């Protein structure tokens, strides 16, 4: 059946071409990897990233390919990219203060700076982005503004995720007020709250 073989090859070729990459961006410790794990667990049954209270746990771009996501009767296949947190400062002493040896902390700091550079490079290669903000913190930071500005300049669709709504002091309405031009979805990646609303938005943008 040579035609069937050719058909399958063509199908694979074009389905690869249609890969849709969704980058998870944000400042350090906003819950990007917790969200990546939640999405991955919900749709593939597997986690994809390590999570830690110590900043810069994700120091390289972590990919989960061909994640099939369904919402509103529509199915999309995405490549999920968990990005290192973007920041303008890295101090190894932050890690030693959390019990790490100086040597280990210096290695982690070096890897963290490289991770930030890698995440920034990817800004022009994603098809859409989830920009994760900690709903307990002031959203109007330069890192958030610069990430959004660069995505907007490239006309890359953005969904802002106001994370950690399970915490009492969270104020997702402050995120909405800061960036009224964008879709803002309040969620708790940790507790799995309101994830369906996020999936509906992802499917809309894919």
């Amino acid at each position, binding site marked *: 059946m040579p035609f069937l073989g050719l058909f399958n090859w063509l199908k694979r070729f074009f389905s690869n071409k249609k890969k849709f990459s969704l980058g998870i961006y944000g400042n350090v410790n906003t819950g990007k990897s917790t969200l990546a794990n939640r999405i991955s667990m919900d749709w593939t049954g597997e986690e994809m990233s390590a999570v830690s209270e110590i900043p810069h746990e994700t120091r390289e771009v972590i990919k989960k390919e061909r994640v099939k996501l369904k919402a509103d009767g529509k199915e999309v296949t995405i490549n999920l990219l968990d990005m290192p947190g973007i920041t303008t*400062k*890295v101090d190894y002493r932050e890690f030693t203060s959390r019990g790490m040896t100086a040597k280990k902390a210096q290695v982690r*700091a070096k890897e963290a*700076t*490289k991770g930030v550079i890698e995440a920034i490079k990817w800004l022009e290669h994603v098809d859409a982005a989830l920009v994760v903000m900690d709903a307990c913190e002031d959203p109007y930071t*330069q890192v958030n503004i*610069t990430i959004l*500005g660069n995505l*907007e300049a490239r006309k890359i669709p953005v969904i802002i995720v106001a994370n950690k709504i399970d915490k009492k002091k969270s104020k997702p309405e402050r995120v909405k007020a800061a960036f009224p031009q964008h879709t803002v979805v309040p969620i708790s990646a940790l507790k799995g709250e309101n994830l369906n609303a996020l999936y509906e938005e992802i499917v809309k943008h894919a």
Partner: protein
Amino acid sequence: MVNIEFLSANALNQMDAEKKLSTIIAAVKNNKILVLEEGLSREEERELFTRTMKEINKTRGFTGIEIVSMGEEVDDVRAAFIKMLGGKTKGFTIVGPEKLVKEVKRDPQKIGFATSGK
């Protein structure tokens, strides 16, 4: 003592992006706070983040920057016309060493840059 330097829009316009970023990094590494009369573009800010990370790796004791910009960069016909007439359409940017700047506060109307006096 806090050392603050002001870079005029005129001076900035005579620099290409590379020169602008090197000037900022050099000033910040010398513990200075820089006020740029004309804000950086989105791409320049992005490049400044990258350069800062490379500099942290290269320079012992340098831990990064604090940066805050005010006023959006607008790329429309009106902005082009204002520029043609010699007007200014960009906001301004303040950059300082992370070690020196204790707190940055901003809202759409005002910004605050508090130093630690280290």
